């Protein structure tokens, strides 16, 4: 019996190749989207779960109020871990961590490594990173010990055993004490080397509440209650003794929050070692996959009900021959099952094929084999069954419920209520497509705005080079050498690049209005900073060589003055005009005069407004050179720079990148979602149009006789095309009307995240509507043209 059903299904697929293609192709795309997105979500949801202590690990974040401003950061001071471990019995252990870059040298192999983890010796006890060699209790028990991951062991030692070999890291000789497995991609802590936390220098040997640069994790006792412990901790932090210790006066305070390890990646607002995922994106991904699948399923339902006229004779006969309603129902469900199963196989192949592009889109690193695992295959299987029913249910119900005599006599009526369902499905499909198109256009517009916004500085053609090791000793020499390279316009240095300033600091100003405490961002910069980055001064001047003489360290620093440049916002916040600011004394690291006011520039992402910023002259804090070069012959300039670099830096790798890359990296998440939405919008409209194409083909066949009669009565080609297209265009117009406001609402919601944003313009909607209508017209027009141009005698003779 079942065999017979499947046979019929296959023969129908062969007979109606166009419909079969539309259905199989569409469902394959829908299922592939679901599979890939399922893979992505599975990865997001599995973050850090591999830790056997996962449920007992918490990350400590810090909340403090100072000068009327509340700050939340994921990093904490060195004291937090040890102090809590001593004070609260619920805490079993702690680990403080930091990731930094350094040159790593073994024999003649020298690389710059970005993922060197500094962690307390308890690290391997708390987290589950399996050691292939070495004992977890002892691998980090001495400051000169270092653990490598497998791939690093391979990179530096090839097939030799690395154990007990000596490598040079952060300028120190270290002995390899262990090798651990590479960190999985669903770990928030990803590293290549691990060494002791105390190797970070003398600064971390003292226990401090502030100077919070470290991420601290606690291992709690079995059964410890996180929120109770958090309450206890904050009660402790607000006790008089501790408040005194933390210098928290008045309404100021210092509190800590505990985030369960498994919540950090998806639910925390505070990024740690890597940008967090977002549960919102997980939801958006799920919705998009389901929408695409829904469009494909709607195609199936539509085409199947449209075909019912053709199938009615068959069904009628089956019933006359004794088929029961349920037998006919099962037959049609098996047809959708066959189609879906073929689509499923195709979806799997498709997913395997597009994995690299999917990785690009999501910033993940999935491998092909990850698809051929029980979980994804099971997911695909479930979806296959679901879609078989979802898509096949309605046609099966309608066709199996038909009355025999009606079918035999006059054929199956395809008008009436089925056509209402079909129309609703078309409207639904196109509403989804139009929604995605408009939403995508607005996102793309905002991305374009971000790319071209006048930031207050010129981010293009600036080469960024890291300063490391003992390069500071030759700072001026290297700077001068680069300055003289042909094609270089200007060179400066700073602690960090200006697109995203992270250095938080404070400022004290005493003027006629009293004493202001202002918390702000600060930037240690070298000479020529504003000039190199193309910033404009609102008043005063850039730092000059003679400013260094203010910073007099003789006589026990008694004459030391620190020169400052402030931004307009800071001046305004203090209550000065730019001109008034010049020469005023302010105090950050030391008392000093304001020598210049720089016009406001965006030193944070466009999600946030421009805040107060303080720049102070310093050479010793410099960590990056920034080199402005001419836009012509960039390659030539770069290779000349490299030669100079190699000459002057004793073989440090010439690891350059451009400032605008840093800037673009700030919007990676947005860039990804814009890409995702573009692809989704494209798939949606393609699938919806395919369905429409099939339906139009069908309608035209159905109306062949009518068209023939109309033509003999004198209808022109235009009449015919209009006759066929009219209804479809109407439906698509309805979907535009429905989708546009929803898309506007959603897009505006998304734009809320930006302080600097576009206003969605009318042309977006007009473009979306015009494009959709045009595509519809082309899709439907093909068939109506064919019908309109056929010889009416032929179509009438078929009777």
């Amino acid at each position, binding site marked *: *019996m079942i065999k*017979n059903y499947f046979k*019929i299904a296959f023969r129908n697929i062969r007979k109606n190749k166009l419909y079969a293609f539309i259905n199989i192709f569409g469902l394959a795309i829908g299922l592939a989207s679901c599979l890939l997105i399922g893979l992505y979500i599975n990865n997001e949801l599995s973050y850090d779960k591999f830790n056997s202590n996962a449920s007992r690990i918490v990350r400590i974040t810090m909340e403090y109020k100072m000068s009327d401003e509340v700050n939340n950061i994921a990093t904490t001071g060195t004291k937090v871990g040890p102090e809590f471990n001593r004070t609260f019995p619920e805490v079993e252990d702690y680990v403080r961590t930091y990731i930094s870059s350094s040159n790593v040298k073994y024999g003649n192999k020298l690389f710059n490594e970005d993922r060197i983890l500094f962690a307390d010796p308890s690290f391997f006890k708390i987290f589950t990173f399996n050691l292939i060699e070495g004992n977890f209790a002892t691998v980090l028990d001495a400051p000169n010990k270092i653990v490598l991951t497998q791939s690093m062991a391979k990179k530096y030692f090839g097939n030799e055993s690395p154990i007990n070999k000596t490598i040079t890291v952060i300028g120190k000789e270290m002995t390899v004490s262990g090798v651990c497995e590479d960190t999985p991609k669903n770990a928030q802590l990803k590293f290549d080397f691990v060494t002791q936390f105390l190797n970070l220098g003398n600064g971390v040997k003292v226990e401090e509440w502030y100077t919070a640069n470290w991420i601290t994790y606690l291992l709690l006792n079995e059964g410890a209650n996180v929120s109770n412990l958090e309450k206890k901790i904050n009660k402790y932090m607000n006790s008089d003794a501790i408040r005194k210790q933390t210098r928290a006066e008045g309404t100021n305070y210092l509190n800590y929050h505990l985030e369960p390890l498994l919540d950090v990646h998806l639910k925390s607002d505070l990024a740690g070692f890597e940008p967090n995922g977002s549960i919102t994106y997980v939801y958006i991904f799920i919705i998009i996959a389901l929408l695409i699948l829904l469009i494909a399923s709607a195609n199936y339902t539509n085409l199947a009900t449209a075909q019912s006229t053709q199938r009615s*004779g*068959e069904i009628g006969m089956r019933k006359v*021959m*004794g*088929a*029961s309603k349920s037998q006919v129902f099962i037959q049609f469900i098996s047809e959708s099952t066959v189609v879906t199963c073929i689509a499923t196989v195709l979806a799997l192949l498709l997913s395997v094929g597009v994995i690299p592009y999917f990785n690009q889109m999501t910033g993940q690193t999935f491998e092909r084999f990850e698809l051929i695992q029980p979980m994804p295959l099971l997911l695909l299987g479930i979806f296959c069954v679901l879609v078989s029913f979802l898509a096949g249910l309605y046609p099966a119900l309608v066709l199996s419920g038909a009355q025999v005599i009606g079918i035999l006599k006059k054929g199956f009526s395809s008008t009436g209520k089925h056509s209402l369902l079909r129309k609703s499905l078309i409207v639904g499909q196109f509403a989804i497509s139009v929604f995605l198109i408009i939403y995508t256009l607005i996102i793309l517009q905002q991305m374009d705005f971000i790319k071209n916004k006048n930031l207050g500085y010129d981010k293009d053609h600036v080469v960024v080079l890291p300063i490391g090791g003992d390069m500071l000793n030759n700072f001026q020499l290297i700077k001068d050498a680069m300055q003289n390279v042909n094609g270089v316009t200007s060179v400066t240095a700073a602690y960090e690049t200006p697109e995203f300033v992270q250095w938080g600091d404070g400022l004290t100003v005493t003027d006629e209005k009293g004493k202001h405490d202002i918390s702000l961002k600060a930037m240690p910069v070298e000479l020529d900073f504003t000039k190199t980055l193309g910033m404009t001064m609102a008043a005063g001047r850039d730092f000059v060589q003679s400013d260094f003489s203010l910073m007099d360290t003789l006589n026990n620093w008694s004459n030391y003055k620190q020169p400052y440049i402030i931004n307009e916002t800071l001046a305004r916040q203090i209550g000065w005009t730019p001109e008034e600011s010049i020469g005023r004394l302010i105090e950050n690291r030391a008392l000093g005069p304001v020598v210049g006011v720089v016009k406001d520039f965006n030193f944070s992402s466009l999600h946030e407004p421009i805040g107060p910023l303080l720049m102070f002259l310093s050479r010793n804090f410099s960590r990056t050179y920034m080199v402005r070069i001419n836009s012509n012959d960039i390659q030539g300039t770069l290779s000349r720079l490299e030669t100079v670099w190699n000459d002057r830096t004793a073989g440090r790798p010439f690891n350059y990148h451009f400032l605008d890359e840093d800037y673009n990296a700030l919007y990676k998440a947005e860039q990804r979602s814009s890409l995702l939405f573009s692809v989704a919008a494209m798939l949606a409209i393609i699938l919806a149009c395919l369905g429409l194409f099939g339906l139009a083909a069908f309608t035209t066949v159905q109306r062949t006789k009518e068209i023939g009669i109309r033509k003999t009565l004198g209808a022109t080609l235009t009449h015919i095309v209009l006759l066929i297209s009219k209804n479809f265009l109407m439906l698509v117009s309805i979907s535009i009307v429905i989708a546009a406001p929803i898309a506007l609402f959603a897009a505006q919601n998304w734009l809320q995240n930006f302080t600097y944003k576009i206003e969605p313009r009318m042309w977006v909607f007009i473009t979306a509507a015009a494009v959709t209508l045009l595509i519809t017209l082309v899709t439907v027009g093909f068939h109506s043209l064919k019908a309109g141009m056929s010889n009416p005698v032929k179509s009438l003779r078929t009777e």
Partner: protein
Amino acid sequence: MLLELKNIYKWVNSGSRRIFLLKDINLEVKEGEFMSIMGPSGSGKSTLLNVIGMLDHFNEGTYNFLNEPVHELKEKHRANLYKEYIGFVFQAYHLIDELTVYENIETPLLYKNVKSSERKALVADMLDRFNIVGKKDLFPQQLSGGQQQLVGIARALISKPKLILADEPTGNLNSKQSEEIMELFKDLNNEGVTIIQATHSEMNASYGSRTIHLLDGMRNRTN
């Protein structure tokens, strides 16, 4: 008594007017009869056949089939009844295009849940009897009209019905093919199968043992 129709009325409403398709039909058919229904187009021949075959409803009157009151039966029960006892043959054959000759004949058995081995034997017998073994793997479009109707009859016979209802079975065939089909019916009738056919042709009607005439949905007793 195989079946008995008493005062059967069937009508449709067109606007405020009521149009009668069948009007006061009384009819008895005994087992083993070969009856022909004649009448011009639109006289209600097909409607009467459909009512007898339980594919169509009627509005008034009583219908007993093998002593079962059809007018009182539920849809499902009625379907079981015609599945069991009635085979249909149509003017347009109504073979399923997607199925081969073999599969077309086999389908009624599938719906009766007959076992595979038994199905094979029954279909093979039928193919043999109708001399279409060589055509069993062809699709309906590959056959001539007469051959298609043969398959249609074979399909109607496969479930061993007591009654065959044939609605202008030769309407689409030429005279030679018609003659063959009618001879076949006669043979079947001789084997004990009751046959009711609707036809335009006096010639075809002459194969039967009895003829009734319809005009405007009524039995026309004048001739």
